[in-house]
């Protein structure tokens, strides 16, 4: 008698299993990429060496990675906290712009010493990010309007508003830089090479969020509210109030990311400065699978992909090839996440439920 093997889908997967599958997925994606590059006449080992040297292999590459990571940490955390209560904030991009605009308004027009101005700008960025998500939040909490649509659409508004400000009222009259405001009088001090304080602060915020989510009553209530709103109501948890606070927190985090990018990296308000960091925050959150702490490695991976993309572009690879490689990697990871759920079982053996 042949033992008929079948696959059974496990409802939950241990983190280690996921990790192994993902490593496999990334290796697969790299192999496919290498094969395609080889077919197009490139030398994959040379490119790999180059990428390694210009990212993790050199001081300058490491600094670049950290710089990419800073906004991704915060936008990733923004999407993740919202996810904890079962909602999708697709609007981190818009809140990022709103935060940058709010911070720029303070930075450009309030004369004050840096020590006062920077915290003020950070506060303005957070408030602006919260303001940008306020309407979707209230619509969600009181009218049940789908937050995916509302937050997404406001992204375009925020992006266009930034273009308007940087080509209109706030445009740079001094150097005549295109689609850009004047240079800000202050900037976030650097801590390590070109890496500014936004990076350690971002790490700290993610760590604090992780602790809050895991070890406070509030975090527990968010978890229950996200997993089953009916059970939350049954236990007397005020789900609506929690949704409002969590969504505002999410918007504030993305707004702060905008302020950091503005005052730490770009130093001016620029059209298109969000650089998809808001949308990539969604990718980071998906990779982190709802865990705040896992936002850190997920942001690192994403930063590495972005950085490697830039390096490859210097080697005459077009931006779309780089985008395709990114897509391939994420696609493989998504497949791996699903496949990790399956486990071969022998048909004869009867699984007994615990």
């Amino acid at each position, binding site marked *: 008698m042949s033992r008929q093997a079948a696959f059974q889908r496990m*409802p*939950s997967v241990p983190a280690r299993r996921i990790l192994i599958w993902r490593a496999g997925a990334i290796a697969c994606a790299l192999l496919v990429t290498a094969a395609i590059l080889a077919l197009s006449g490139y030398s994959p080992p040379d490119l790999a060496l180059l990428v390694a040297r210009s990212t993790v292999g050199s001081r300058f590459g490491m600094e670049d990675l950290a710089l990419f990571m800073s906004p991704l940490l915060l936008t990733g955390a923004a999407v993740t906290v919202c996810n904890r209560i079962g909602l999708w904030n697709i609007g981190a991009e818009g809140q990022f712009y709103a935060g940058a605009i709010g911070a720029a308004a303070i930075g450009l027009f309030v004369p004050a010493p840096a020590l006062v101005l920077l915290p003020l700008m950070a506060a303005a960025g957070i408030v602006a990010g919260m303001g940008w998500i306020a309407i979707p939040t209230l619509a969600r909490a009181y009218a049940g309007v789908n937050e995916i649509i509302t937050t997404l659409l406001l992204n375009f508004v925020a992006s266009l508003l930034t273009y308007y400000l940087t080509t209109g009222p706030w445009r740079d009259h001094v150097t005549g830089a295109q689609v850009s405001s004047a240079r800000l009088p202050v900037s976030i001090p650097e801590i390590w090479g070109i890496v500014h304080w936004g990076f350690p602060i971002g790490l700290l915020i993610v760590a604090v969020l992780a602790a809050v989510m*895991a*070890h*406070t*009553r*509030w*975090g*527990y*209530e968010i*978890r*229950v509210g996200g*997993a*089953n709103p*009916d*059970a*939350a*109501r*049954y*236990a*007397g*948890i005020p789900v609506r109030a929690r949704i409002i606070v969590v969504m505002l927190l999410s918007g504030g985090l993305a707004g702060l990311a905008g302020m950091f990018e503005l005052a730490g990296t770009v130093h001016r308000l620029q059209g298109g400065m969000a650089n998809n960091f808001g949308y990539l925050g969604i990718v980071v959150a998906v990779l982190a699978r709802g865990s705040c702490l896992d936002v850190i490695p997920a942001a690192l991976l994403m930063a590495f992909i972005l950085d490697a993309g830039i390096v490859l572009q210097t080697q005459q690879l077009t931006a779309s090839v780089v985008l395709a490689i990114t897509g391939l990697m994420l696609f493989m990871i998504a497949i791996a996440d699903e496949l990790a759920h399956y486990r071969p079982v022998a048909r004869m053996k009867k699984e007994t*439920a*615990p």
Partner: protein
Amino acid sequence: MADAPDRPPVAPGTPPILQLRGIGKFFPGVIANKDVDLEVWPGEIHALLGENGAGKSTLMNVVTGIYQPEEGEIILDGYGRSFASPQEAIRAGIGMVHQHFKLVQAFSVAENIHLGWDEAPRRISARVMEERTRAISERFGFPVRPDARVADLSAGEQQRVEILRVLSRRARLLIMDEPTAVLTPEETRELFRALRAFRAQGNAVIIISHKLDEVMEISDRVSILRHGRRIATFDTGDCTPSMLATTMVGREIVRRNMRARPPGAQPVSATPVMGLRNVTMLDARGVESLRDVSLDLYGGEILGIAGVAGNGQRELTQVLTGLAAPATGQVLLDGAVMARPDPAAFARAGVGHVPEDRLRSALAPSLSITDNMALREYAIPPVGRRGLYDSRAADMLARDIARVATVDIPDFAMPVRNLSGGNQQRLVARREIRIAHRVLIAAYPARGLDIGAIATMLGYLTELRDQGVAVVFISEDLEDLLNVSDRIGVMFHGRLMAVVDAADTDMETIGLLMGGRDGAPMSARGEQ
């Protein structure tokens, strides 16, 4: 009954419209129907009577082609037939109006009637469609507004649209599943008038119901199903409601008396722990789902709540656990009026709640067993302290609950949905019993459990009673109710029909009350 003249004479030799022979239908582990013979004659309204799960709906789904029978044959006008789909059944003249209407809410009445109708013209304007609908509505005597949107209609109007959908397709046998469950008394009278007119044209109706009064009023004959088998068929004229009730619920029952207290048990408290005063609740459509309910719960006593599901039990639990506020009336806890519906405050005051649907409302399926077991005590020490959540203490709590519930759990971090339904139910019950210092509301706690688990669950209830807690036990199973309850209240159409002493009552009385008959002597409620 009195309207016998409406019945057209049947020519000798006419075969029955529908004849079932030895129908059997099985689901994994369940015999839904077995050896069912049934004849429905032209010009007859035939009632199908039976408890929940007796196999009425399954049998009708077999007749209308939704299910295929595993055994037996369906004979239509003397010819054997089989239906692969409801479409084939309706082409053969069998139409069914389901309890939950299958209409497109966003479409107009006329559009719903023409939807999927093979005789509808291929191209048709809204105006023509509405005219056709008006004509159909007049022909069959079911008034509808052809241009109205279905979403804007009352339940009674929607039902008329469903019936017209069936009749317009030339049905000669109309099957109605619990048609009056959603109707007002006036709408019910109109429906019955129209059904009699339909019968007068030589057509037949099968009506599924567990309301004895209606069966007595509308039907010519009545067949009773029990455990998937047809027990008997009577001419309605020869029946009395109590005889139908006995046949419907009557069975070999083991009356294990779990009402006796062991030595050392807490006596029944002198004053009520919790009470409702003239509580009325309205559902989303503004219909009264609880009507003027007053009751008292005493410590050390089990109050059983009997009734067919959907007669206000859900609303009763919501009011008793603080999940919903009554529209009018008061909820009293220890003599004090609970002004605000706040489930957390009720829980703090010692009201536990084992809800009807544990996975949907008592557990967060994707969260760990530990998190789920902490749901009632996360805010109080040792788990909750100064706004913090101590996951280690929560883990200890979960282990405690699992130990008392005798559920063996290999990994407390795994999602609670990985557990079997019986184990989930035990854990929820024990979690709630922990906080139920005063009252436990248990809605269908034994539903879906096997016999051993049911015994355990009932044991939990009596154990709690002996500790002096007031227990409300809502169930459809009269046997369980009679075994453990001290008093039994019967719900019908949102009303508490009566509260009777379990020791002096029997299945027949309860069955009558469940069917809306006030046949039993009312024992004074709260009389101890």
